[in-house]
């Protein structure tokens, strides 16, 4: 408390320096006058009295100095001096300052941008939501099976009832609808949420209300919706009397009860939600029927909020215990099932989990680029320090402390990095919404992945700025202050190529740069190879000649029987079109973000471990789906129109499932259980990829749509292009029903490519930054070599005069530069071998120690550094011996 008060007074007195100085003069003057008067009274003559008074007082100037130091903050005052002096120095060398600042701005800006993305996408992804640090994502899992599942509503209710460590359970199931029908249907993302959604998140609607507790219950009983600010503005033109009006959503009029505040986009990383409906409306928005009373129907994704002070592990322990009790009470649906909590940044069901590795790499790369930039600036400063040796020598000679010099140089560095940090923030601000461009729209909806620049990002970036100042300015400062006065006062000693231990710092910096560039290049190379491997992987179905689109029947209010009639009619019409070979609907189109159905299965003769439950994903498909997709049939037959509601339940399984559960026996004609219902295997299809190219082989089967649920996704096998088919489709669909329109029509290739967007983004990032690093490292090398050459002109001239050939000198300089590169490459190789393991998760069929990227990285560094060394070497070789010897 006292300390603070003293500090305040000292700070305050900084502002009134001159006034306080006068006041002190007056006070001391008064003291001396009194003392002199007293001495005269004691009988001294005036001069004698005066000198006695001064003697008694001690040195007036020293006292004043001590007084001033006590009064103000000497640190601040010298800092101010250093800042002014540093600013002048930087202004005197604009070229140096600008180059240094560009390097640092790139480094700091890249870091700030990545921080802002991490903050906005991973750490605090939901604007306006309070206490995000206590939110955790909740999802289910099947023991023994990888990945996560959704949670059923009854399970979720039981968790909520029995959990004492969490104060809110929030359902948030992504859905969507088609609001505008034109030539192409535009989808709007939306969420099915629990009634406590807005209250629990601390988001207050700006008009109307959030949901009320009873709106969780009753099948389709509460057709109400809260709309987003954006939808209110764009669709309803900010109508102030919007509350109470109705909006058709999925064929049912919904009453608008609230408008969410501007800037609230829901709680799903990747999309900006347009409206929210309560859980009771699940059946209208989530395909697959009414699920609120079905413990086996897993459809809920959501969040819990921990009570203050509760550790995630405690909450997980409690929730696991509850899940175990549920397993015991409801073995039919819950055997082998658990519930897991995830921190927001690892949320498995939205884009946080998908983007985590990419952002991790980006952070890594940004730090690398920063270090390389720092090394470069450090090099520049060292070059500049040579020019300032005279200044430093003089300052040391007239009594400046070495520490004081270091401080001065560090302050100059601080000015550089502070200015660059400002530039970096501007860069990050400009880039904050750039992340989304690395990823294509999915399902025709643009993704929403804003960065967020808040005080945490600013503080972290400021920290980075300080650390980088130390990184780049400390070495030059230390070196500059270690001038040997005696030798420096003599004439500048002439340099020798490769001589002098003092000059070790710069080559080391160049080596570090080369090494870091090497690591980045190897990383980029590995990812490129992996991407190539991914793209060479066959998905197991035709990617060319097959187009995919979807029709939003739900939004138009279609019920199942009407969908059946419509689809039959449309397929019939499409197959009559010239150029169309076949067409088929399916519930899920592969490689989209729609989720496959998953069901517990039982195969006769296959024994399941006691605490596990066999489950398999399946797809509901129409007649001729496999032929349309070009998935080969290995035995049996595929579905025809005869496999309808009245026919016996049939399934086509993939060969992986056949070998896994039937072990060599021909499964065609055999039966297995799906959710307790018997199904007959009528065919075996070759395994294909279902979600993405890198997934592991999995058991999978198909069942006829007509025996389960109808699907909206249309596949067309045709030689025509997407635009032509889109036009034909619109015509055919409109002639059947003008209220329907197809969504985006894309080739299957495009659909597959979209799943590799994350890998491609990572490759692009690494390639760009790897290239940047290469350029920076080359500049650094060029700087060191050309400086060495210009400092050793006399030596070179001497060698020339003694008969050295041009090629000797050229070779001498080149080999020295390449030796540096070589050391850097060796260092980098060690670092890369140790660190590429970290990206194993992003690599596909490529070893993190694959020799090819290592070779390519070495080659490109050797080439780049040869180019960087050649100019100085050429200059060295053209040294004119006469001039060189005369000038020195």
């Amino acid at each position, binding site marked *: 408390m*006292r300390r603070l008060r003293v500090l305040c007074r000292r700070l305050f007195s900084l502002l009134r320096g001159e006034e306080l100085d006068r006041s002190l003069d007056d*006070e001391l003057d008064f003291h001396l006058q009194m003392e002199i008067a007293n001495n005269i009274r004691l009988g001294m003559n005036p001069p004698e009295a005066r000198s006695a008074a001064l003697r008694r007082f*001690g040195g007036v100037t*020293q006292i004043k100095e001590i007084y001033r130091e006590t009064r103000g903050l000497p640190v601040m005052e010298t800092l101010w001096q250093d800042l002014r002096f540093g600013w002048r120095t930087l202004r005197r060398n604009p070229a140096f300052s600008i180059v240094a600042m560009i390097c640092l701005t790139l480094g700091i800006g890249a870091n700030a941008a990545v921080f802002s993305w991490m903050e906005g996408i991973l750490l605090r992804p939901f604007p306006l939501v309070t206490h995000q640090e206590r939110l955790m994502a909740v999802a289910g899992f099947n023991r023994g099976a990888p990945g996560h599942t959704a949670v059923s509503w009854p399970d979720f209710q039981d968790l909520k009832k029995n959990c004492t460590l969490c104060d809110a359970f929030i359902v948030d199931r992504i859905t969507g609808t088609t609001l505008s029908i034109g030539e192409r249907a535009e989808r709007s993302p939306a969420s099915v949420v629990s009634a406590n959604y807005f209250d629990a998140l601390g988001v207050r609607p700006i008009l109307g209300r959030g949901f009320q507790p009873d709106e969780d219950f009753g099948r389709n009983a509460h057709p109400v919706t809260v709309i987003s600010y954006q939808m209110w503005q764009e669709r309803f033109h900010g109508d102030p009397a919007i509350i109470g009006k109705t909006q058709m959503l999925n064929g049912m009029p919904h009453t608008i009860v609230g408008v969410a505040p501007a800037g609230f986009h829901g709680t799903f990383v990747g999309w900006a939600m347009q409206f929210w409906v309560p859980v009771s409306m699940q059946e209208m928005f989530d395909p697959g029927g009414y699920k609120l009373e079905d413990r086996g129907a897993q459809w809920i994704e959501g969040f819990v909020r921990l009570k203050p002070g509760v550790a995630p592990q405690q909450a997980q322990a409690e929730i696991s215990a509850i899940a175990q009790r549920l397993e015991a009470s409801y073995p039919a649906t819950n055997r082998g099932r658990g519930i897991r909590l995830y921190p927001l940044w690892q949320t498995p069901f939205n884009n946080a989990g998908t983007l985590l590795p990419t952002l991790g790499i980006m952070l890594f790369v940004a730090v690398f680029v920063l270090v390389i930039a720092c090394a470069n600036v450090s090099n520049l400063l060292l070059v500049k320090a040579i020019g300032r040796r005279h200044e430093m020598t003089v300052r040391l000679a007239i009594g400046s402390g070495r520490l004081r010099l270091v401080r001065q140089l560090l302050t100059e560095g601080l000015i550089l990095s502070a200015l660059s940090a400002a530039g970096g923030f501007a860069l990050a601000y400009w880039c904050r919404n750039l992340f989304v461009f690395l990823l294509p729209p999915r399902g025709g909806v643009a993704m929403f992945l804003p960065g967020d620049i808040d005080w945490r990002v600013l503080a972290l970036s400021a920290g980075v700025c300080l650390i980088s100042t130390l990184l780049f300015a400390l070495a030059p400062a230390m070196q500059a202050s270690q001038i040997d006065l005696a030798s420096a006062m003599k004439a500048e000693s002439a340099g020798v190529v490769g001589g002098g231990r003092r000059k070790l710092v710069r080559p080391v910096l160049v080596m570090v740069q080369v090494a870091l560039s090497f690591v980045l290049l190897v990383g980029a190379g590995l990812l490129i190879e992996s991407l190539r491997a991914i793209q060479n992987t066959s998905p197991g179905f035709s990617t060319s000649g097959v187009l995919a689109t979807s029709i939003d029947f739900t939004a138009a209010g279609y019920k199942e029987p009407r969908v059946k009639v419509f689809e039959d009619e449309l397929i019939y019409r499409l197959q009559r079109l010239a150029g169309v070979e076949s067409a088929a609907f399916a519930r899920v189109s592969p490689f989209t973000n729609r989720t496959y159905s998953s069901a517990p299965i039982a195969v006769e003769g296959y024994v399941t471990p006691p605490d596990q439950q066999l489950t398999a994903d399946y797809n509901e498909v129409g007649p001729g789906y496999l032929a349309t997709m070009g998935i080969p049939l290995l035995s049996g037959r595929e579905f025809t129109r005869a496999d309808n509601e009245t026919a016996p339940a049939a399934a086509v399984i993939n060969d992986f499932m056949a070998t896994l559960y039937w072990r060599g026996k021909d499964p065609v004609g055999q039966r297995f259980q799906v959710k307790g219902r018997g199904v007959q295997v009528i065919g075996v299809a070759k395994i294909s990829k279902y979600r993405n190219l890198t997934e592991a082989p999995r058991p999978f089967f198909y069942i006829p749509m007509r025996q389960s649920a109808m699907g909206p996704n249309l596949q067309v096998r045709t030689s025509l292009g997407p635009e032509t088919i889109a036009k034909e489709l619109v015509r055919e669909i409109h002639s059947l029903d003008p209220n329907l329109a197809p969504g985006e029509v894309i080739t299957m290739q495009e659909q597959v490519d979209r799943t590799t967007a994350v890998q491609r983004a990572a490759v692009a990032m690494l390639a760009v930054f790897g290239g940047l690093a290469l350029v920076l490292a080359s500049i650094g090398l060029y700087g060191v070599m050309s400086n060495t050459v210009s400092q050793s002109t006399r030596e070179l001239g001497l060698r020339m005069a003694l008969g050295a050939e041009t090629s000797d000198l050229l070779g001498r300089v080149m080999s020295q530069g390449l030796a540096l590169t070589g050391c850097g490459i060796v260092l980098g190789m060690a670092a890369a071998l140790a660190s590429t393991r970290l990206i194993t998760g992003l690599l596909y069929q490529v070893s993190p120690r694959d020799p090819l990227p290592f070779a390519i990285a070495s080659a490109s560094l050797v080439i780049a550094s040869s180019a960087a060394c050649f100019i100085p070497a050429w200059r060295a070789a053209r040294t004119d011996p006469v001039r060189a010897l005369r000038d020195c």
Partner: protein
Amino acid sequence: MANDKSDVLHGSLALMVLRTLDTLGPQHGWGIARRIEQISGDALELNQGTLYPALLRLEQMGWITSKWGASENNRRAKFYEITRAGKKQLAAEAKNWERIADILDRFLRPSRESV
């Protein structure tokens, strides 16, 4: 600077200043210096100047306040006055000082028991 030499002195100087102001009431720098010299006689070798940084430190701590006023010979002088916090500090410091003096006393004078 020369702090290590005068550190002990600083502590006791502050105590002397506070005590002086407590006894005499508001006083200017010269007055304080004279008083300290009078009390300590010639035993204390003190440059009068060192008093001023000490006064500043006491003021920064909030134990004394200062005000410009007229001196006894009608000149403009800066007067220092002890604050309530200063009195509290004086009491605490004095007690502390006595305790230390007591301990040192016991150390330096051989005790009867040990003889």
